[in-house]
């Protein structure tokens, strides 16, 4: 195996961080403003906000898993949890520790007594953690330090010809070197699942990907929804995509030609090197949250129409499918793959540029989304929210 140029942060459980964040995570939506106040007062700390208020319904275990996975992503040096002191919040913290989070601060509002005090204590804790985070240094890391998430959004008809297959070239090369790469968005492999199943390392895994798509297709038919109008979206159609299958055939190109090593549930952590498929919704931000909760530490996001979407804890590299958009939205786009359609560059050449960019960003250079401070977060739910609380 070739020597890796990756330099990263080694976590106590042996995983690798490509960033070194101090995360402020409210465990109840009512603590979101407090989390923001701590973030604002501590340059370098990052906070997310969400809309979960401790509801005990069909999604409870899913939400516990998402928040615990997000908090324990190896890109986090430490996480400060803000809670209302419920048992489910305690469970999230316990799971995050089990998933490898080493530096945990738990601030409970009922215990502290006022939001003002909660914010003051939070600022002091965050400042202390930031000092400790700055003492960490990057060290030589193996290729397996890269856990790459593949994503596309705002696709056009060039996505499947330029940016997606070029990303596939980079993904294949990383997988071959020993990294992990994860494809997602179940909606957007519908019509291409047979091609992924044929590349599965076992028949069981092939069968699972077929079943995952069938489960999704059945749920859509059950709801009586006609996806036409939503998939492909109006923007996709303007871009030249006519059917969901066409979009999927192009979307699956992001995963190159590597063998498929497994199928993951939403927010599940890939167990070993190789290419995986994660069962995620086609919603870009819910999908990114699932990736972060599944301990993916870097994402490449191909886009035809352009989007500012980013993550609080994962660098998200934007690759444009076409040059006019790359020029128009140059403050959002890190790399332009449109040259392939103009005959100016080959897939292999752009694939190499994406590969090099992944290494550059992994080693600490910031993406456009990081520079602009895009911190989108969304919880993915399966059921209606039922108002019943455990507190």
């Amino acid at each position, binding site marked *: 195996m070739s020597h890796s140029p990756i330099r990263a942060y080694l976590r106590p459980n042996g995983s690798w961080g490509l960033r070194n964040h101090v995360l402020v995570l409210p465990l109840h939506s009512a603590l979101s403003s407090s989390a923001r106040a701590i973030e604002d007062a501590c340059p370098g700390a990052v906070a997310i906000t969400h809309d979960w208020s401790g509801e005990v319904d069909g999604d409870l275990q899913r939400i516990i898993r998402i928040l615990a996975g997000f908090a324990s992503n190896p890109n986090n040096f430490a996480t400060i949890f803000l809670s209302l002191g419920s048992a489910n919040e305690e469970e999230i913290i316990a799971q995050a520790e089990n998933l490898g989070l080493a530096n945990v601060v738990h601030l409970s509002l009922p215990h502290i007594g006022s939001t003002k005090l909660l914010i003051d204590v939070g600022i002091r804790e965050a400042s202390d953690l930031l000092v400790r985070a700055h003492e960490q240094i990057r060290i030589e890391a193996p290729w397996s330090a890269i856990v790459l998430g593949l994503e596309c959004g705002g696709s*056009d*008809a*060039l996505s*499947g*010809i330029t940016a997606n297959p070029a990303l596939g070239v980079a993904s294949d090369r990383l997988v071959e070197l020993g990294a992990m790469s994860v494809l997602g968005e179940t909606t957007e492999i*519908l*019509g*291409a699942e047979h*091609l992924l199943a044929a590349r599965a390392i076992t028949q069981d895994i092939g069968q699972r990907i077929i079943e995952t798509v069938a489960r999704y*297709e059945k749920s*859509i*038919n059950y709801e009586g929804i*006609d*996806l*036409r109008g939503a*998939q492909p979206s109006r923007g996709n*159609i303007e*871009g*030249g995509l*006519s*059917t*969901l*299958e*066409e979009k999927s*055939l*192009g979307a699956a190109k992001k995963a190159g030609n590597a063998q498929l090593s497994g199928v993951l549930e939403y927010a599940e952590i890939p167990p070993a090197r190789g290419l995986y498929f994660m069962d995620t919704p086609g919603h870009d931000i819910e999908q990114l949250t699932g990736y972060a909760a599944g301990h993916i530490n870097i994402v490449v996001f191909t886009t035809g129409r352009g989007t500012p979407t980013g993550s609080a804890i994962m660098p998200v590299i934007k690759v444009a499918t*076409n040059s006019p958009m790359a020029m128009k939205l140059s403050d959002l786009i890190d790399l332009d793959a449109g040259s392939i*359609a*103009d*005959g100016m560059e080959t897939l292999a050449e752009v694939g190499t540029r994406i590969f090099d960019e992944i290494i550059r960003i992994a080693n600490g250079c910031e993406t456009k989304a990081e520079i602009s401070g895009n911190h989108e977060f969304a919880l993915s739910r399966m059921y209606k929210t039922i108002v019943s609380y455990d507190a």
Partner: protein
Amino acid sequence: MRKILILHVNDNVAVALTDISQGELISQDEYLFTAKDNIARGHKLATRNISINEGIIKYGERMGHATSEIRTGEHVHVHNVLGDRLSSEVK
């Protein structure tokens, strides 16, 4: 500069690499035909006649079917193509 891209030998559509005007002659490799519609960059055009209900093949894979007769050089899009799955037409 090449005007169209054929992704797989089995395909019956090509992708426009540039905006193509109605009446424009496409002469590339073994293809020689006239564009029957204005076709925007990234959109598809038929590289042979396609009958109603016949599969639309791109990347060498079926991406839907024709909902009307499509002649060589015509724009192939939502007005004459429907996906095979998850569409209200097929129940």
